[in-house]
């Protein structure tokens, strides 16, 4: 079973993304939203080899460049991802 992990906190002030990266499986994906979008600056995300999505408006609001190892999605895309993966784990 695959899990979509939703992370909405900056990895630079908070351990959620680091913990998520420790336990997420190869078939899983991570969706960054809110301050979680700052995770695009986090090298660990790139090297982990897990699929990464970022909510476009949160990325644009913060003027973050989209790296080639991540994909951006809008809200309908967010909904589609939550359907495509077996379950959603929101790191509240």
């Amino acid at each position: 079973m695959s899990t979509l992990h939703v992370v909405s906190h900056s990895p630079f002030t908070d351990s959620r993304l680091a913990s998520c990266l420790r336990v997420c499986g190869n078939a899983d994906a991570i969706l960054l939203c809110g301050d979680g979008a700052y995770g695009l600056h986090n090298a660990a995300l790139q090297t982990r080899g897990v699929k990464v999505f970022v909510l476009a408006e949160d990325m644009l609001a913060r003027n973050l460049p989209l790296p080639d190892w991540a994909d951006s999605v809008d809200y309908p895309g967010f909904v589609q991802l939550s359907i495509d993966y077996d379950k959603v784990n929101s790191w509240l």
Partner: protein
Amino acid sequence: MSKSLLVISRQAPWSGPSAREALDIVLAGGAFDLPIGLLFMDDGVFQLAPQQNAKAVQQKDLSANLQALGLFGIDDVFACGHSLAERGLTAPASAQALGNDAIGKLIDRYDQVITL
């Protein structure tokens, strides 16, 4: 067949309502015989530390709720080994310590996950 639920509790016991709420979800699920698991991770493992004194901060003791897990038929209680080691804690007899890969497989096994 009900969907199985894993609750991941990752907040320290006295930092806010999250720790108690995670336990309440698990106990409520247990009361309805849902297949439910509980994983303590990150600062959540501090909930497992022995001899805490909730009265010192005018709060209710969580240890009674923790002890009630068995009574509610919740036997799948786990703790993140990495988080325990980071904090110099060991898992109590009531919780099984798991490595990172085992936690990944654990999350995989459940139909739904709630992280608080």
